[in-house]
């Protein structure tokens, strides 16, 4: 079954995906064109364009065909014909919810955070960032993807560098250079991939689907190319030990920057690993899976332990991201339907809960002008509703069942258990550590008797509550009823695994079904994938 099966054919009157990229871009330009005397107009334009984008992403969700594994709403136009570069956008179950998350998160971040100065360029950069992120999630052309992937860096650099906190220049530079070095490798990878593929395709093409379907790389070549991509994504995820730019960037970024960085930007890495790593080079992905599984599990523990010892609340949340993203990578390289679906779900869940955590930490900073845990105390007594909101989001991050964080994490772990047993056994201890670092932080910040500086801490305001409400709604809904999400993710995850099985000969052991109709069919339970890492090439 081809991933393209249902793609291409569908022609839509309205190019919704192109619009998803262009509307925020137009919004960015329009924001800049507004007069300096009317800041409220500037804000209105920005909010309007982000809300329109969000609305379109919801419309996309509503009209997405459930059960279809291929790319939908495909928009394909020639662009630079002689080089085989095209404007090729499409969405499938893997990217759908990331697009929706982007669409929903940006307006909330724009409305919910205050830059305090130079609002006009700030809003323009954010909208440009949205266009870049949307483009990255939708691109099905390697060059197009690379362009969007790189564009994202520029607004983020300026957001951190201009609207960040005291160490912002150091953090912004580090963020930019670190990811840039990864991207440079990827550019080499992209060009080489296209050139090598041209032998088999008969022409130079950067089209992802075309290359994936038509080209088959020799094992060693595929592995080199895979690593060129994978390192760029590993930096972005960030995978241990390439993660140290993240705490700096998060801590120094303005609140909206942190929310977006954690919410969607990090997912460019995990999404890239799935879409361009595993999909394009299944053999190499299978071959190197133990490296990634190991780094993922180290990341889970390392991030959690480092988070425990942080004294800065924002840094703590940043390190918790390292741990959470480790789960996603673990799921990706376990190569089972449950694990990959869980990983995709976890990308969204982490975006929601960590995004909300950064918003809350931002609100604390706005009130107290400190992020130091030691300077905060007893906030639950003076602001019980604020504390309750923090509690719900925190429990989601800890992975308490009934809330969204659990679903993704659980599916990743249970799905990975059959193909990556010992990694799961160790990685799952991360859930103990998650409770430790978050509850300890909560105790120090919210429990106890507030001292003088904290006793005037302001309770959650209505506007702030309205911003948090969608987050909490999603946290509860996705935890109680994740089926609509899973139904849409699963076919694409399955199709990807069919490809991995065909190309790399890797398959998860069949599951015995003792509970279903009778007990006799427990036959072929152990033809396993244990060590057959597709080396037959």
């Amino acid at each position: 079954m081809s991933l393209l099966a249902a793609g291409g054919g569908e022609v839509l009157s309205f190019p919704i995906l192109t619009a998803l990229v262009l509307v925020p871009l137009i919004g960015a330009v329009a924001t800049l064109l507004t007069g300096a005397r009317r800041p409220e107009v500037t804000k209105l334009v920005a909010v309007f364009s982000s809300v329109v984008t969000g609305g379109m992403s919801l419309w996309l969700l509503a009209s997405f065909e459930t059960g279809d594994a291929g790319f939908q709403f495909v928009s394909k136009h020639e662009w630079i014909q002689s080089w085989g570069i095209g404007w090729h956008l499409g969405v499938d179950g893997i990217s759908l919810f990331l697009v929706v998350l982007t669409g929903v998160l940006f307006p909330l971040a724009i409305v919910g955070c205050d830059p305090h100065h130079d609002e006009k360029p700030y809003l323009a950069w954010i909208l440009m960032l949205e266009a870049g992120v949307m483009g990255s999630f939708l691109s099905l052309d390697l060059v197009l993807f690379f362009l969007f992937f790189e564009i994202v860096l520029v607004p983020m650099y300026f957001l951190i560098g201009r609207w960040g906190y005291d160490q912002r220049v150091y953090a912004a530079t580090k963020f930019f250079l670190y990811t840039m070095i990864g991207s440079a490798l990827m550019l080499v990878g992209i060009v080489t991939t296209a050139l090598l593929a041209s032998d088999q395709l008969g022409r130079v093409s950067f089209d992802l689907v075309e290359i994936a379907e038509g080209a088959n790389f020799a094992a060693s070549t595929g592995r080199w190319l895979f690593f060129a991509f994978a390192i760029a994504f590993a930096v972005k995820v960030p995978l241990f030990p390439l993660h140290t730019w993240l705490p700096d960037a998060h801590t120094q970024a303005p609140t909206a920057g942190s929310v977006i960085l954690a919410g969607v930007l990090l997912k460019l890495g995990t999404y890239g690993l799935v879409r361009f790593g595993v999909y394009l080079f299944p053999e190499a992905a299978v071959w190197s899976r133990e490296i990634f599984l190991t780094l993922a599990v180290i990341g889970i523990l390392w991030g959690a332990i480092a988070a425990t010892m942080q004294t800065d609340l924002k840094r703590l949340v940043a390190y918790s991201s390292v741990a959470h993203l480790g789960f996603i990578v673990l799921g990706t390289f376990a190569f089972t339907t449950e694990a990959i679906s869980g990983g995709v779900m976890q990308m969204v869940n982490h975006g929601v809960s960590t995004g909300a955590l950064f918003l809350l930490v931002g609100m604390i900073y706005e009130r107290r002008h400190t992020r130091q845990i030691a300077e905060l105390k007893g906030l639950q007594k003076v602001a019980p509703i604020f504390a309750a909101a923090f509690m719900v989001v925190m429990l989601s991050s800890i992975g308490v069942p009934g809330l969204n964080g659990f679903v993704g994490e659980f599916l990743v772990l249970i799905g990975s258990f059959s193909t990556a047993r010992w990694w799961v056994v160790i990685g799952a201890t991360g859930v103990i550590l998650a409770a430790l670092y978050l509850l300890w932080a909560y105790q120090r910040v919210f429990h106890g008797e507030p001292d003088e500086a904290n006793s005037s801490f302001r309770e959650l305001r209505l506007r702030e509550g309205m911003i948090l409400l969608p987050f909490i709604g999603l946290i509860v809904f996705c935890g109680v009823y994740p089926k609509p999400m899973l139904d849409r993710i699963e076919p694409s995850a399955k199709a990807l695994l069919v490809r991995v099985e065909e190309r790399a000969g890797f398959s998860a052991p069949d599951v015995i079904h003792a509970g279903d109709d009778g007990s006799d069919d427990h036959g072929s339970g152990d033809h396993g994938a244990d060590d057959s890492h597709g080396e037959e090439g």
Partner: protein
Amino acid sequence: MLDLIWLVPALPLAGFLVNLLFGRLLGEPKSGIVAALAVAGSFAVTAGIFFDLLSRSEHDRSHVDVLFSWMPVGSLKVDLAFLADPLSITMALFVTGIGALIHLYAIGYMHGDPKFSKFFLYLNLFVFSMLMLVLGENLLVTFLGWEGVGTCSYFLISFWHTRESAATAGKKAFVTNRVGDWGVMMAMFLAFGAAGTLSYSGINHAAEEGIISGVTATAIGLMLFIGAAGKSAQLPLYIWLPDAMEGPTPVSALIHAATMVTAGVFLMTRVNPVLEVAYDWAPTLIAIVGVATALFAATIAVAQTDIKKVLAYSTVSQLGFMFLAVGSGAYVAAIFHMVTHAFFKALLFLGSGSVIHGMHHEQDMRKMGALRALMPVTAITFIVGWLAIAGVPPFAGFWSKDEILLFAFAKSPVLYVAGMAAALLTAYYMTRQVIMVFFGEARWNDHSEENGAHGDFKPHESPIVMLIPLVVLAGLSMVGGAMQLPFSKDLHFLEKWLHPVVEFGEADIKGTWAYDNKYVLLGIAIVVALAGIALSVAVYAKKKIAAVEPVLLANGWHYDSTISRFMGGPGRKAFDAVAWADRTIVDGAVNGVGRVVQSAGGTLRRGQTGAVRNYAAFIGVAVVALLVWFFLRGVVL
């Protein structure tokens, strides 16, 4: 009636939602009444389901109600579904029944607390979670409840969160339980791998049919036991329960005595076929851990001076008895003791709450004494509870404890002797508590100033809402043993009722020496209980023997403090080392590379002097070097 099973958890959930939205508006006592009514309604529905099941034939007493598909992906199909069968309904009955009584009690106990409605909000959420736990059709729904009760327990232990010790105790409970939860997760993964499902019927069926191999079953059983040891406070994870007494006393009664802490026993009973096909040493290990915990905690209880701490260690000890039963294959006895324990331990906790209430929040037994005249209802009901836990016939605890020890003897006389020793200690320390609190001389007058009372300090009896639950529970503690009497097969009501659930795993002890001589064992049990009481009376009432309360026991064999020291010392250092390594090694390497590039750039820049002579010289040297290299290469080759 069976189709209404969803109502059982739905009512407390509704109560929670009402209090969430309107709790402050309702205020005291309305929010408490709403919460209590929700749980009482839930009890009524459960009772209806119970009679419905009872009217059916034995193997028709199982009903699954699927609400919706929860996590369907790949080969994993998990429904949000409830299972109504003898085990789950037994659990639901005493959870909702005792829950309703404790809600009622709490209306009186929490009187005047500024967070009155919030307390009932949490309490309803707890009952909802607990019902999800026991009614779950599969491991994952149970796990939802499992973590839910853990979370509520965290909220309620640290309910008075401005107190540092309460906040710390809540966190400790949650994190320690998470260690156990890791085990439950592993068990789920293993079960899913081996049986392809998480539903209890599927897993148990697979075990009975031999689809789950012995080694996998052993692994599943032990992983679940790790979870059970966390939730049910067994060695080595019991440390959170004594600290959990920081919570309000109704919480201690409901969560940390009657219901939540028994979840581990319930879970092991649920999957008894898996334990049955596991290697023999697995249940034996469970029995050993159980009896060791029972004995260990009983020795600590002997030297406690806090009225609630005695009961906390006693709970740990009694839970150990239940695991001794599970490990001995005596699942009916385990559930039997779980139910009777819920009656008398809830009674004892509520009684101690009444004492604390009447003593103006004094918990030190050394400052009590002679309270029986001032708090007659509390005293009488507490004495009933004491006789029940001490194992004096015909009170409830005697029968259930005796049943456990009977099976333990059949498994190994060593287990029996150890269990009997724990029973002796139980009678001893409970008698000590009763004497210190209700008899002897009044010691509270000397301390009236500390207690914040002006002038005449006089303990008083509690209001009627607090006394009604005490009386009801005292009644149940008296007659509770009637559900399973040893004299004749016809009197084994509980066994017959639970039979379809435990028939595969229940040990058959017919023909063993213990079974043939059960009346001898019964006699020994009575003698031991009376001996424990007599000894305690001699020490604490008659003062004929000096009390032995070594500091070692008062401090719980230094177990907890050793762990704390380890966590605060080497544990913390190790964590710090990781944080340090992240800063200096991982990030240091990154910044190091940055610096190298920077300085290399700086050095290279100096080469660009702009003087042609320098360039020429450089080219010249390079040419020579190249020539030398080519020459050497040629020679070598």
